[in-house]
């Protein structure tokens, strides 16, 4: 009945042009593991689909001059896992991206799609927030950069402007003694949506935390950067008191809902439990590398 147009441009300029022109009827297609599901279930009926997977910049993984990484928005989980060094530097980001779905889903699903889908439970987002990733977006008015935590606006919504496409994630260079980790709570062992997700990135020197960032997912309308929790860890040796304080800060930051996936009380409690466990893994990785 309604017609659907599919475009697969080779350049970002073309993609932005077509996307902006089609207006609200258009959708960007990365891996399609959210988009196609939403279309099949009748939630979405786009008139135009702009597939960005033919655009080199959007599917590339590069090491930047300063030692950081630039990951194209449509890079699949599998491609990221196969990169030689990315997972060594950002094991937490990689494990978060690789937790999405199953092997089959991993062949397609991207961190860009995970972020732009706007789910507060998206697995890669808390890890990207903890990593301090910066995103590059391109729209009819050119390019701009945003902090990853500023992209989600609420369930299913982002702060991208009409016609804007997410191009890449830039992850900063890592000082020695740094690592990260991501854990999620799901009732099953896989193929599930995070009831709580927690990303922790740490830098340690002589057993003391010198820098920390913490991202929490599925406990509020958007993924949260929990600075109070990070501050509780910075300067500590990750002793029980510091961890308890950080866990309490995570629980306090939660503004969850009671829904079919978990109760408020449960999510608040679990946010703290996960913080402790994730921080322990990140610290172990950070100190191992020294």
């Amino acid at each position, binding site marked *: *009945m309604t017609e659907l147009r599919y475009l697969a441009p080779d350049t970002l300029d073309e993609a932005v042009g077509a996307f902006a022109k089609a207006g609200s009827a258009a959708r960007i297609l990365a891996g399609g593991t959210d988009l196609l599901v939403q279309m099949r*279930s009748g939630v979405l009926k786009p008139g135009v689909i702009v597939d960005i997977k033919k655009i080199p910049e959007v599917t590339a993984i590069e090491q930047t001059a300063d030692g950081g990484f630039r990951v194209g928005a449509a890079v699949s989980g599998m491609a990221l896992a196969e990169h030689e060094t990315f997972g060594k530097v950002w094991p937490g980001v990689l494990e978060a991206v690789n937790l999405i779905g199953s092997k089959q889903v991993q062949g397609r699903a991207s961190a860009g799609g995970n972020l732009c889908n706007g789910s507060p439970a998206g697995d890669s987002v808390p890890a990207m927030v903890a990593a301090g990733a910066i995103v590059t977006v391109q729209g009819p008015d050119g390019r701009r950069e945003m902090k990853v935590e500023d992209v989600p606006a609420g369930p299913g919504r982002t702060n991208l402007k009409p016609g804007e496409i997410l191009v890449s994630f830039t992850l900063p260079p890592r000082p020695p003694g740094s690592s990260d980790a991501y854990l999620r*709570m799901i*009732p*099953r*062992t*896989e*193929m*599930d*949506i995070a*009831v709580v997700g927690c990303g922790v990135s740490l830098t340690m020197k002589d057993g003391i935390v010198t820098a920390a960032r913490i991202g929490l997912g599925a406990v509020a309308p958007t993924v949260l950067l929990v600075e109070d929790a990070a501050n509780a860890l910075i300067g500590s040796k990750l002793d029980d008191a510091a961890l308890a304080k950080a866990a309490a800060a995570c629980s306090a930051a939660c503004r969850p809902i009671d829904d*079919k*996936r*978990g*109760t408020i*009380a*449960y999510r608040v*409690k*679990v946010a703290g*439990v996960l913080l402790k466990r994730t921080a322990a893994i990140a610290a172990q990785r950070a100190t191992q590398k020294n």
Partner: protein
Amino acid sequence: MNVVTNNKWIGQRTIRPDGMDKVTGRAQFAADTTMPGMIWGKVLRSPHPHARIKSIDTSKAEKLPGVKAVVTSKDIVDFPIEKGAVMLGIQDMRWMCRNVMARDKALFPGHPVAAVAATTEAIAEEACKLIEVDYEVLPWSIEIDDALKPDAPVLHEFNKFDGKPSNIVGRLEHKKGDIAEGFKKADVVIERTFTTRPVHQGYIEPHACLISVAPDGKTTIWSSSQGQFMVRAMTAYLTGIPQSDIRAIPAEIGGGFGGKTIVYLEPLATLLAKKSGRPVKMVMTREEVMRATGPTSGSKSTVTIGATKDGKIVAAHGTFYLQAGAFPGSPIRGAAGCSFTPYDIPNLLSEGYDVCSNRSKVAAYRAPGAPIGAYAVECVLDEVAEALKMDPLDFRLKNAAKEGTKAAHGPVFPRIGYIETVEAAKASPHYAAPLGDGHGKLRGRGVASGFWFNAGGESSAQVNITEDGNVVVTTGHPDIGGSRAGIANICAELLGIDYRRVSVIIGDTQTVGFSNLTGGSRVLFASSMVVTQSTEKIIQTLRERAAKIWEIDPEAVKWENGAAHPASPNAGQFEPLTLEELAEKAPAMGGPIGAGVQLNTQGADGGFGTHVCDVEVDVDLGIARVIRYTAVQDVGRAIHPGYVEGQLQGGVAQGIGWALNEEYIYTKEGKVDNPGFLDYRMPVCSDLPMIDCIMVEIPNPKHPQGVKGVGEVPLVPVMAAVANAIYNALGKRFYALPMSPPKVLEVLEAPTQQAAE
């Protein structure tokens, strides 16, 4: 154990006949069928849990270009309530005609109110939106407690209980002795109340059919079901087309577990096809499956068990309230009838109440009702054993039913295998193994037993020898658990030929005799009886033919290793005549070789199982995982052990889902809030350990191969085994399913007195 070892094929893990098609994607499921000129049917469903349908206006939908037919309840044959029950098996057509299409009232969200056929699915969907239904929205209730309140909205006003309109639409009881007297003798009495949530059968293949009605009324149905004859009969009843005009062709089935023992789409598609003159295809979405088919009942059970100090159960009382959904028919027979059956209890009262409420009509689910009842009974038994400081398996042994025990639901048991299952569980490597270190997680072990009636009933088969001397067996039950493989083993065994020479197919309603649906763990039991008798007739014919050729007496010919031989040297010296040779000579020797048998099979024996479960609980997250599981079952005779183990493992997997995560969640508006596999959490592979099986073989003496049904028992003990293991790990008891992480954490964090209550 009484295992026959000299068989060549019976007891072998032969290659399953449907395996290649299934792993290569060639298997034809109902949704794979197409026909020239085919159009698509869609159902308009009630958004309300409870509403009077004042009027339906389909005129706008009918005018939409592409729409070929619209049907409403006016087109379905009515079975007036006041005229009394019209039964087909366990289904009353009065309820079936109202379930496939709401008549005066819509009784659950998802209840069909109209159906449309159009040239595309999209047009059919669009047309559904153009149908105007004038609803008078009524108050509703879903949960048992709500449906039983004195002021609860009554779904079926005609129904009275204790003289008043009520949602209690049925009651049954099994009684033995005098419980009041019995409890007086008890040193320990424990009474507990349990609740379970509705759970869906969770078959992967949604309901689907393609139906063609020719101008002369000849109707062909391709559909996914557990019984092509059930499909034919129900469609005939609900459309008025005689059964002789309906050919129901069973498709390969992608799971049923009891949920495909009734029809939803077939009568609607038949009427749409008849009206439009075009073949009509209908395929449910997952959401429709979750909202409008199955599931089994949610429940509320109270169980009291009394025992003496030396560990004898002296009295027990069970009251089981089961949600029927929109129409009467919850499986109270399984709950009240099976739950205490493994035990020899002198004083027993087991009562079941069938409760209607505004959710989809219950459909059978693997040992319907029995797992619900066993959950309550086996958990209380665990508490009684603990109070008596007895090992829970020893406690069960001490009270075990055996040959001669009179079951409360009627029979005096013949030789049964319950005790052997408990003994095998006790002797298993699992029960002897230490729990091991959980590295911060708490571990525990639990046990539970279960019983299911099993069934026989009508079965038909035709066995034909092909011209090249091979064998085709046609039976009439959809194969959902390995019956084709089992039949091939049996037929090959009897004929003394390689099992690969026996091809087993499932006939359609017009090519094989009536066969009751696949349910009650009846199929291999029943169909191997008729196949055995058919094959024996063929062997008799083959001996007669050889005798004729050799010009000796048929009695002097024996059949062995796929050939006729002289029975003894006195009979004469003849080269054996093989099946191939006799088939080749058939035209000259009296014609084609084949035989068919039809029976109402009798003599099914019930099945018993005992399970051992280890769990590990993450106490900070409330996550319980099953880390080791052993299912012991008396399987009669394992004709195809691979399939028997598959049945045991499948049942256990479903039970673990039921115990830990699966549940229907409802919105405040009374709608299912998790109508998909993302939020209706069945276990995935990585959630389960390898499930070990111990097959105890106590052959059924009334069956030629000793077969007992095996498909349903393995679900019965599971939830109790898991619950008892969680108690063993945590020292806290759970009285409600599922034991999902938020609920486990809630109990763990509750003040101790409350939790112990």
